[in-house]
């Protein structure tokens, strides 16, 4: 009997992502991050009880792009808003999606305390070392010497300090159960990032407390690079300063990762 060949779809848009054009710049890996989260929501079968809290930043319209219920928070306050939602809807899957200005600058207090409370939500943290939406000012995560619109001579660590490593900080907080930093600069790393995102959401589903995945992401527009150059910059400049991997894995989470 001869084998019959059939064509199967091996990759298509996840259900949790709406089929609409995004406003992201060409090659901006916000889009990749969105897709990964959507895939994980679909795979875990939680799309219908997922609630997104979108930030203020380039990803402000994430609420349009995800095909799930969503709220748009004030700049930096997404974790507080998510806390409010989660406390009255404990069985829903609540997550924030935040940029580095949003999470690491103005929203520092809220993300810290959400982690301190061990709030049972998930945070997807996009670190692109710049303020994208406002046109390219320095972020707390901008690299030493990095030229931005508000550090035209390059980030001067004497005056502005060293770029902040949020994953390491959050990992140091007892209430954080899972914290990992991954990158979106190539397919291999994208796949690792997805695994981390899946773990983070599983942590929430198991009620284990706060989980966060930091994703190194590109901003070709404000870095003044082509998309391809931007990914190289992530790999060659960001990764050395922002090491990839898991920074906090509670024993219970380790169990979970094995499953």
């Amino acid at each position, binding site marked *: 009997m001869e084998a019959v060949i059939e064509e199967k779809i091996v990759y298509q848009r996840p259900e949790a992502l709406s089929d609409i054009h995004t*406003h*992201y*710049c*060409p090659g901006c890996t916000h889009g990749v991050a969105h897709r990964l989260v959507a895939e994980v929501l679909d795979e875990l079968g939680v799309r219908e009880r997922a609630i997104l809290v979108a930030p203020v930043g*380039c990803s*402000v319209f994430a609420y349009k792009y995800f095909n799930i219920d969503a709220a748009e928070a004030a700049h930096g306050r997404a974790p507080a808003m998510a806390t409010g939602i989660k406390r009255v809807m404990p069985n829903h899957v609540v997550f924030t999606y935040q940029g580095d200005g949003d999470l690491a600058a103005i929203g520092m207090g809220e993300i810290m305390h959400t982690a301190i409370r061990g709030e049972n939500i998930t945070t997807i943290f996009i670190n692109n070392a710049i303020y*994208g*939406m*406002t*046109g*390219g000012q320095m972020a707390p995560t901008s690299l030493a010497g990095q030229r931005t619109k508000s550090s035209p001579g390059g980030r001067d660590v004497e005056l502005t300090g060293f770029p902040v490593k949020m994953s390491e900080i959050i990992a140091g907080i007892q209430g954080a159960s899972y914290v990992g930093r991954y990158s979106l600069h190539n397919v291999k790393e994208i796949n690792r990032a997805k695994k981390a995102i899946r773990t983070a959401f599983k942590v929430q589903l198991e009620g284990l407390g706060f989980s966060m995945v930091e994703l190194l992401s590109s901003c070709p*527009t*404000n870095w003044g690079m082509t998309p391809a150059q931007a990914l190289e910059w992530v790999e060659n400049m960001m990764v050395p300063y922002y090491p990839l991997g898991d920074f906090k894995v509670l024993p219970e989470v380790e169990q979970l990762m094995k499953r």
Partner: protein
Amino acid sequence: MQEEIVFAGFGGQGVLFGGQLLAYTALAEGKYVTWIPSYGPEMRGGTANCTVIVSDEAIGSPVTKYPSVGIVFNNPSLDKYEELIKPGGLLIVNQSMVVRNPVRTDIEALVFPATALATELGDTKMTNSVLFGALLARRPIVSLEMAQQVLIEKLGQRKAHLHAINIAALERGYEIGMSVQA
């Protein structure tokens, strides 16, 4: 004399800079001038436009509903601005990026492939210079000479290698503006 000129197109087409060139030139010639951009969050491929008003008197409103001149860099801008131009006004259309001709007959229309010409002259990004040149031919709001001077100044030393071709683009547009029977 007061002219209200709208430059409209995609982000990345040099729309805002085109308007600024006009504004700087007008200032250099001692005219009153305002330049207003549409501004939005940093998004490539979105619409971009600016309004320049040049006048012999102090300018009240820097916005207007019905501009006297429209310079449209692409099709959505043609659709949006054609109907708004004042009767008797001027509409310059970048034929390279539109799929139709203007239809109004109560305004002057100048339609030519500015982007194609710019590409031909060495840089697609000079679409704005070509269109600006054409504008000065049809409406001598400022002089071509002053525009050339300002263009070189604004490009600056760092872009010295672009001076010649930009001047050429300006002149090419001017020629076309002078030659075409509108």
